[in-house]
Structures are given as structure tokens and as C-alpha cells.
């Protein structure tokens, strides 16, 4: 469909084989020289065999893998649950913040204070405070597991960022949309639900996915409150054997998870850009 809209590009000049292949060959050669040199520099270092056996030992990686992978499932579980909770809670906060009218002032103040506090505190600090602090109050009826409270801390922290992302998306919806909705007889809730939020979501989806990738790695923070996630399992292996290859295994697992997410984010951002271009065209 796109090809119908856009005019045919101007015919490219036909390149001679030399013009075509010499740059290609040169870039290949320079890449090989460049990375080969650094590879050689690292592996020729006097201490390399020791580093290799303590950081990149295949045997140790194999030994550490089952436990680290098991921990990684916990990471991904926490990530998936938090992601849903953050998406909902941040949306509620963003709605609070965008409500108009004097009666809603307490909600607006609450949201502003909430964002200031939870965006201003390091996530690690929140995890420690929630994971150790709240269970120590021993309030009957509340769960005491560190996994639960660590998850709560992540949700509260990331919601502060996500709220701001949502809000920027809502602000980007033209004021005329509010006026138009009002003219149609929609009340405030209907205006938000039918006119503003659907447009805002499309605007901010790439930015939200970006947060999701960041969260995917930050769930490893829960390791400090006793949750045996991938990082903690890797550290356990390290402290038992003094071998760091387990950390490389954990790093590899995180890459497997985050790289597809990053590509998805790129893809969504590209679609979004195309959509905008078509709209203005």
C-alpha cells in the first residue's frame, strides 16, 4: 500500500564492480583488524588463562546453569506480574493527575507528591525498605514474603515513571479533542475513556516499552532481600567456588530476554513514526 502512495525513487546509478566491492572489502578488513587486534590484546595478556578459567569456564557455566536458569524464571515471573500492575496503577495515577475541577485537587496533589517521592528514591532503597521494613512491622493479615514486598517496591517505583509517560501522552493530545468531546455531550470520565486515553496510549507505547526493558533488568534488585533470582543464584555459585562464570551465564540469559524486547520496541517505534507521517501527509 505504501508503494502506491510514494513516487518511484530515482533510478540509481549503476556501480562498477570496483565501486561496489572495494568499500565492502575495506570495511570487512577494517572490522577484522580492529576487533582482531583487541581480541589479541586481551587474550595475549599474561593473566588471560587465569581470567578465562575464573570468568569464562564452560565447565563452570554448565554447572551453574540449571540454578541460574531457575532463578531467571523468577525474574521473568516478577517482571510479567509487575508489568501488568505498573501499567494499570500508572494509568490510574495519570488519570488522577489529569482530572480537571477543584474537587479533584486532593487526587492531583497526591499524584504529584507520589511521583516526587517514588521517582526521587533509588529503587534499591525502596526494595530494601519494603522488603525488610514492612514485614518487620508484623501487621497481621499482610503477607511477609520478601518476593511480594520487593515486587510492590518495583511496581511503586516504576509506576512513578510510567505515570509521567502517560501524562506526556495525554498532554500531547490536542486540546481541541477535549472541546470536541464536550461538544458531543461527553462528561469528564467519558472524555478520558473514549477520546483522550486511547490516543495517548498510541502516542506513548514506544516509551512504555522502553520502561519495560529497563524493568526486565531491574527486577534483579530483589536479590538483595533474599529472593533467589538469577543474579543471586549466580552469586551463590561464585561464593561457593570463587568462580565468576556463573555471572556470565546470568548476563547471557538477561540478554536473551532483553534483546528481543529492544527489537520489538524499535519495531513499534518505527510503526508509530510511519503512522504519524501518513497522518500528516
Amino acid at each position: 500500500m505504501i508503494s502506491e502512495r510514494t513516487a518511484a525513487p530515482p533510478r540509481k546509478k549503476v556501480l562498477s564492480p570496483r565501486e561496489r566491492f572495494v568499500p565492502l572489502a575495506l570495511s570487512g578488513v577494517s572490522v577484522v583488524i580492529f576487533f582482531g587486534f583487541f581480541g589479541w590484546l586481551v587474550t595475549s595478556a599474561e593473566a588471560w588463562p587465569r581470567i578465562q578459567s575464573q570468568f569464562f569456564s564452560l565447565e563452570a557455566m554448565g554447572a551453574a546453569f540449571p540454578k541460574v536458569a531457575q532463578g531467571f524464571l523468577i525474574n521473568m515471573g516478577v517482571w510479567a506480574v509487575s508489568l501488568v500492575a505498573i501499567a494499570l496503577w500508572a494509568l490510574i495515577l495519570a488519570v488522577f493527575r489529569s482530572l480537571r475541577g477543584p474537587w479533584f485537587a486532593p487526587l492531583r496533589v497526591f499524584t504529584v507528591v507520589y511521583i516526587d517521592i517514588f521517582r526521587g528514591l533509588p529503587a534499591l532503597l525502596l526494595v530494601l525498605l519494603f522488603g525488610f521494613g514492612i514485614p518487620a512491622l508484623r501487621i497481621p493479615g499482610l503477607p511477609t514474603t520478601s518476593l511480594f514486598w520487593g515486587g510492590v517496591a518495583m511496581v511503586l517505583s516504576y509506576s512513578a515513571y510510567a505515570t509521567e509517560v502517560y501524562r506526556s501522552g495525554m498532554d500531547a493530545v490536542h486540546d481541541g479533542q477535549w472541546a470536541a468531546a464536550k461538544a458531543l455531550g461527553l462528561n469528564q470520565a467519558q472524555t478520558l475513556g473514549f477520546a483522550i486515553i486511547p490516543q495517548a496510549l498510541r502516542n506513548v507505547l514506544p516509551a512504555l516499552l522502553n520502561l519495560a526493558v529497563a524493568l526486565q533488568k531491574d527486577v534483579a534488585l530483589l536479590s538483595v532481600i533474599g529472593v533467589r533470582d538469577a543474579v543471586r543464584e549466580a552469586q551463590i555459585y561464585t561464593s561457593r567456588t570463587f568462580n565468576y562464570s556463573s555471572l556470565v551465564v546470568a548476563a547471557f540469559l538477561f540478554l536473551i530476554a532483553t534483546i528481543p524486547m529492544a527489537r520489538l520496541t524499535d519495531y513499534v517505534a518505527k510503526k508509530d513514526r510511519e503512522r504519524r507521517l501518513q497522518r500528516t501527509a
Partner: protein
Amino acid sequence: MRRFISPVLLMVFILVGFQAFAGGGQQSAPATPAAQGVENTPTDPRLFQPGKLTVATGDPVYPPWMLNDDPASGEGFENALVYALAEELGFAKADVVWVRTGFDEAITPGSKPYDFNIQQFSVTAERAQAVDFSQVYYQSDKAVIALPGSVVSDAETFAELRQARWGAAISTTDLVYLENVLGVNDVAVYDDQAGVFQAMLAGQIDATVAALPTALFVTAVQVPEARITALLPPDKDDEGHGLLFTKGNPLVPWINQGLTALANKGVTQDLVDTYLVGDMSIRTINR
């Protein structure tokens, strides 16, 4: 073609120059001629700083291993042992230099700015593949620590102990002990002992294990609410505490001679009696 060649040449120049720079740096370090010192004496050129015994320890250090977080005072089991060892090897007290390290700094490969590290490192065969240990200077009992009224308070057998929720600090062998000797599966693992007791006070775990001297100090000073409820038999894979050296450190045999001499003279046992007195009234769970 000329305009293609010049960037390539430039790159080659840069790489060659970089290599010469890096190579030069590598060569200059060992090339410094060692002062004429005699091996296995305090002037040994293989010491980090010939003439001095440079010893690393944790930051902070706890009683009874070292008192008042002050290694140089010589008060405490491990620092007193180091001073006795230094004297045995011919160093003056003033020639012992203390440096502080974290756990990870101590076990990573590479040269270290000290001769050896002492902070209750447990000697195991697995760890010995990555670092060198001296001979063992102390083997401690394991103690169960819990709050009063915990499910482990009345436990008589390992099977009953397994019912509890356990916690342990990473970088200790306590976790391995819980898994291998008691057979506990889901131990919660914290950054340090402080985290373990925080979780215990928060009701997230029921009990933990620690070396008996550490347990006595913790229950007396740090967490007075907690009690030692029982002693446990040693883990056969945990050989005891040893000094930690980087892999291949040539000083190990000489230091070991010193430790052997201290043990034969009864100095080590005297220090154990001074600083690490156990509590004979605590019951032991063996099965």
C-alpha cells in the same frame, strides 16, 4: 586507490603505536630489579612490599575475630594470630601493614596489593581451584541461631530442623552447609549477616547458622533478641579457616611453615582459648 590506502595506513599506525604502548607497560613492571633480599626472610623480594608483611582483612571486621574493628590493636583472634605469625617469620610488630578489602576484591583473579587475606575464609576443594589457601588455622563449630519461640528451638533432629525457613549470608559457607548437611532446599540468601538478621526480625526466616564464635558475638551484642539453640556437626567438605592467597603465590610454603610452628608451640591454641571460648552448655544435634 590512494585515498583508500591512507586510512588503512593510519589505522595500522595507531594499532602499532597502541601495541608498543601496551607492551611497554607490561614489560616495565617486572623489569624493576628487586632489592637484594633473601627468600623466606622479612626481606623476601616476593613480598608485596619487601620488609613488610602486608595483610588484608574485611571491612568492617567483627569480634571475636578482631576486636573494635581495629586490626592493628592485635586484640582479637585473627589479628593476634597474624602478629604471632609475623613474629615467627621475623617481622617486627610495626612491619605488619593492614589493608581493607571486600569479599569480591579478595577472590577475583589478578595481583593484589597485599600478601594474604584473612577474614575467616573457609577452605574447600572447589575454592582452591581459583585461589591458594594456607593450612587451616581454625575449625569452628556451626551454631543454629533463632529467635525465642522459633520452630527450631525444640528441634531434636535434622528432619525437624528442615521444617524451618532458613536464611544465610552469601560469601559464607553457611548456605552450602544448610544444603549439604541439613538438606534444606529453599534457603533465602542475603548480602550479609546483617540482612539475615533483618529478615529474621521481620519474620521472613526462622533460623540461620553461623560459626560458633560469630554466633556468640551476634547473640551477645548485635541481635540480643536471638539465641543459639543448638550446635551442629562439622561439614566434612569444609576444612576450616585458612589464609587466602592469589593463585600461585610463592609465599604459601613459607607462611605455612610459620603457621605449623605456631601450632606446634601451642600459640594458636592459646589464642583460641583466649578469644574463641565456646559455650559447653549448648546441646548438639547430630542426626
